[in-house]
């Protein structure tokens, strides 16, 4: 019981967090800020997936969570490298 309330609370928190990230992505000025917001959103999505795993009692999201954790990093680095040097592989 308490667990499901806590789950809903956590869902709400991270849902809200994702909405804030979205808001930031849409309204920010520069690309850098948007990448930052996107990166935060990736992290929050990971949390949501873990929450979903707890709720459903399944491990089926594990692979996705892991891949998101790994690959969100790659794309963020790629965007940042592009801003820094234009060429992301040199």
């Amino acid at each position, binding site marked *: 019981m308490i667990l499901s309330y806590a789950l809903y609370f956590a869902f709400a928190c991270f849902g809200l967090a994702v909405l804030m990230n979205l808001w930031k992505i849409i309204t920010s000025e520069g690309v850098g800020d*948007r990448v930052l917001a996107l990166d935060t959103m990736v992290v929050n999505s990971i949390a949501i997936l873990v929450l979903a795993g707890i709720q459903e009692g399944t491990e089926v999201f594990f692979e996705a969570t892991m891949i998101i954790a790994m690959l969100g990093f790659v794309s963020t680095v790629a965007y940042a490298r592009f801003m820094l*040097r234009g060429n992301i592989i*040199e």
Partner: protein
Amino acid sequence: MSLFLIAALPFLGAVFPALLIRAGRNACASAAGAVTLLALIGVLVNAPRVMAGGVVTAQIDWLPQLGMNLHFFMDGLGMFFATLILGIGLLIIIYARYYLSREDPMGQFYAYLLLFQGAMVGIVLSDNILLLVVFWELTSLSSFLLIGYWKHLPAGRQGARMALAVTGAGGLALIGGMLVLGNIAGTYSLSEILDQKELIQSSPLYLTALILILLGCFTKSAQFPFHFWLPHAMAAPTPVSAYLHSATMVKAGLFLMARLWPVLAGTDAWFYIVSTTGLVTMVLGAVIALFKDDLKALLAFSTVSHLGLITLLLGLGTQAGALAAVFHILNHATFKAALFMSAGIIDHETHTRDIKRLGGLRTLMPVTFVIATIASLSMAGIPPLNGFLSKEMMLEEISHTTWLDSHWFFPVLATIGALFSAAYSFRFIGHVFLGPVRDDYPSKPHDPGVGMWISPAFLVLLVIAIGLFPEAVAGNLVRTVTDAVMGEYGDYYPLKIWHGVTPALYMSGIAVVGGLILLALHRPLDKGWIATPRPEAKTIFDGLVGALTRACRGITDTLHDGAIGRYAAIFIVFVLVLGGYAFTTGAMGPQTRPMLEIEVLPAIGWFGLVAATLCIVAFHRNRLLSLVLIGVVGLVVTMLFNYFSAPDLALTQLSVEVVTIVLMLLALNFMPKTTPRESSVGRRTRDVLISVAAGLGVGGLIFAIMTRGFAFDTISEFHLANSYKGGGGDNVVNVILVDFRGFDTFGEIIVLGIAAIVIYAITEAIMQTSVRARLLNRVPDQPVAGDAHPLMMVVVTRLMMPVALMVAAYIFFRGHNLPGGGFIAGLIAAIAIIMQYMASGFGWAAARQHFPYHGIIGSGVLVAAVTGLGAWFNGMPFLTSAFGYIHPPGLEEFEWATAALFDLGVFLAVVGAVLLALESLSRYAWNPNIDSRHPMDINPSRDDNGRVIRKD
């Protein structure tokens, strides 16, 4: 001799001159002549049977399904024309041997000529109207080649094209007409059609067929208003003019009218169309001919006129008319061919055909003079030459023909025609041969060798012989032919010179006298003629063709202007319209599936997706930003896939998206970073409308599908039921991919592999052009930060890459039972390596890379294919999988499956493809001077004070 052989001989023979030209001009001509002679003999061998009223046939089925067959028959008409074609052909071949100069490619000439000859023989012997059409069009094609034979003459090229355009158009009409005729009659067999007069003439389509067929005949036979091409065809060498444009090809139209006479003639439509056209053509041609100064033009228009005359006769629809027509075809062929050859001789000797520059040749070229004069007199209708006979018959027939209740219209016009005919014939004699000898001929003329005049001389002998002894020489022939034309045995008077004093004789007399008067008045008349404005056919034709070309080019270039935006818009609108049509003309039942309740998290996802997508459009000019937003879309889609029970898709979507973004960023580096605002408000409005319509359509469609159940059980129930049992895996998606639908996956990895090698190939091609130098000297379009390979990134990558490879291995091995599989594993492995490339640079990483990516792709595809082939050894089809369980001592049992091997192929292909693509793209940025000795730029543990120094 078989009709097949007769028809085939010229075609087969066409090869010889082309080949024998190296053996010399005589050999070449002899070969052509021999073939023709052989074919002529073949016809003549059959002549007795035909003259006795028999019909020679030969049949092979060619395309019986259509009713187009190689059926030949030779009755009187066919034999008559075949003899004419081959006989005159033989004479022309002899003549041409001496006429053509050394520079002319004689082999080509005879080859074309024989092709044409074969086509003509084919026309006249065809017992199948579709076969006839084939030969008919072949004459157009071969005459195109013959007219354009002197390719250095613009007139020749243009004349050839004009002739082809006009006769080609007629030919197409003829195709239509023949198809209609055949469909009315229910057969394309000519002899069967000829028996069905009532059926055909009572058909509502009779007039259609008639008009279409006559269009073919009239264009070919240069009938008004299609007569204009014939004079322009005179740019051809004279033997061609003599052969095609007097004796044979132009008579094909007449032949066809005569051939179809039994079923088409006899109606009012026939009479009015054919005879009126013939009459107008006859008069018009004669009038124009009088004022032509070019010998060949004069003869050409005279031919037009005479063709009109014969058309007129055929149009009458009477037996006597037909007889006269047949007789005149024969006569005209003899005297006109002789005249053309004479004109050719004159041209050959004096180097001019301009009548105004000639005159007085009588003494210089006596032989030619005699030949030309006799032929001309025959053409003028002077007794006792053959021209007179047939013209008398014509006038006789005309004199009692009523046209729209008018008794005088035909006779008067016919007399005028005859009168002008006499006039230009006299002019040919008078202005060329008579008068004083001039001293300003372009070349000093004399009679040519016997080779050149023997042919016309022979023809002139025929002119005289037929004129003097018509019944003996041609009586039987003309009657047999006429019988064939009529399709029944007729009752004829014998041919004779003297018929007593008839209206025709008066008309003849008027014509001859009037002709002399006209000739006397030629100079003032000519001035008047020149001063009279009249439409110039060539100008009109050129204008029309020019307009057609411009219009075509305009249409084409406007329609295909390279604006792919418009192409795509048309595409999408068309799809929407047809999709809407298909929907509205079908029926849709009510919603049958309850909808899922809307929950908060997916709603947030929806919001994120929609917002990010709209932002992409709003900010699409900032390209980097739109890529970041694509990242958002990708993330949300991944989450949605997770939410809606598709973990495999989530994995795939995410990893593909990362690679895509890396790829796009690599490309964007070299491209403009912003998109200019280019489209007008109107265009943007249009695009928004199209897009919104498409969005509504697609959204509505999927909504309708989702809210309705399947109409039938889906096949995936089988997949769920058999995934473990038959495929050995719990992850049904993966089992579908590697087993149930492994063939799709096989294709898919090939797509990926091809994509990579295409990218590689483009890079190779581009790097061999000037682009390479440009790239090397490229100045970055934005400020570049220092520290290309940050220390932290390198160190983290050293840990992340092996761990990521481990994850890839895990995803690979567990994919059969849990989300994952070779494809995702391949992408993750590739991304792990990309990480390394990003960390330490292309040069450093590539120098440590020992596997050729091409090989990895190839091995992937091969492994997959060979795994698939392995099933053959079990006697199973391609890609049949097998699996089992191994129980090593002391350990748990584990599963093996050939599907895993197949998946390994997938894995390798994906790794190879992604890396080859990225490596290729990276090569654009590669510079031999970039330092690739160190994995990181700053390294305080290095003794060089830690830093890679770069300078220009």
